[in-house]
């Protein structure tokens, strides 16, 4: 399944629900465009819900990093929610697990912005 993205607003926090695959040529540009759009619209608090991501490769990891720095450079924060075991393993292999703020519970991720 190619990447599907949807957004919802909880207070001043934007939650991006992502489902499917994030690989080179398969949704990675859509992901980048969405994050840029959020920044343009003034979203500074972003939670990326990866609970339905079935597959991610190094290009997809690169997109996560790129989005993270895009949001950070705009003065905002991007946090990750609901990592699958495979995504978590990849973030650990690449040492990015220490870079991202990661949550397993949506309420906790929302509360972390307060």
């Amino acid at each position, binding site marked *: 399944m190619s990447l599907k993205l949807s957004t919802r607003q909880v207070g001043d926090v934007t939650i991006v629900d992502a489902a499917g695959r994030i690989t*080179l*040529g398969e949704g990675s540009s859509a992901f980048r465009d969405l994050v840029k759009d959020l920044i343009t619209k003034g979203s500074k608090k972003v939670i990326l819900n990866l609970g339905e991501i079935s597959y991610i*490769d190094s*290009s997809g*990891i*690169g997109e996560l*990093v*790129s989005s993270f720095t895009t949001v950070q450079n705009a003065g905002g924060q991007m946090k990750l929610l609901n990592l699958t075991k495979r995504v978590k393993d990849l973030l650990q292999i*690449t040492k*990015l697990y220490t870079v991202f703020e990661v949550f397993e519970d949506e309420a906790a991720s929302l509360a972390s912005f307060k």
Partner: protein
Amino acid sequence: MGHIDTFLESSLDTVDLAEEAVLKVAKEAGLQEEGRYELGMAVREIMTNAVVHGNRYSLNKKVHLVVSREENAVIVKIGDEGDGYTPDCQPDPLAEENLLNQSGRGMMIVRAFVDEVLVTSEPRRGTEVTMRKYLQSEA
């Protein structure tokens, strides 16, 4: 089907084809699901490197895919016709200053997911990567 030796177009579509073909051989060989995921990921990373960085999507250049089996392993060899590179000169993706780079993690993921990796690359003679994944893998 225990052996594949084929030349593929330099397009992202062939990344999917190569992964699919390798995983078919791996399944027939008895590689378990998690091992197949790891080998498939490694194949995707090397195929992507071959198409994007090696052959640079050139219609005139092919990616050579060879898949074979040993009693206890699946061996995948992927070669491109690109400019080659110096593997030891690549930035360390785990270095603090490189952690937020957008790219450069593919080979590290490959090394984590297969049991043996051999990279042969020479200027103007392309790059060839040979990976071995044991059926009872510790990777």
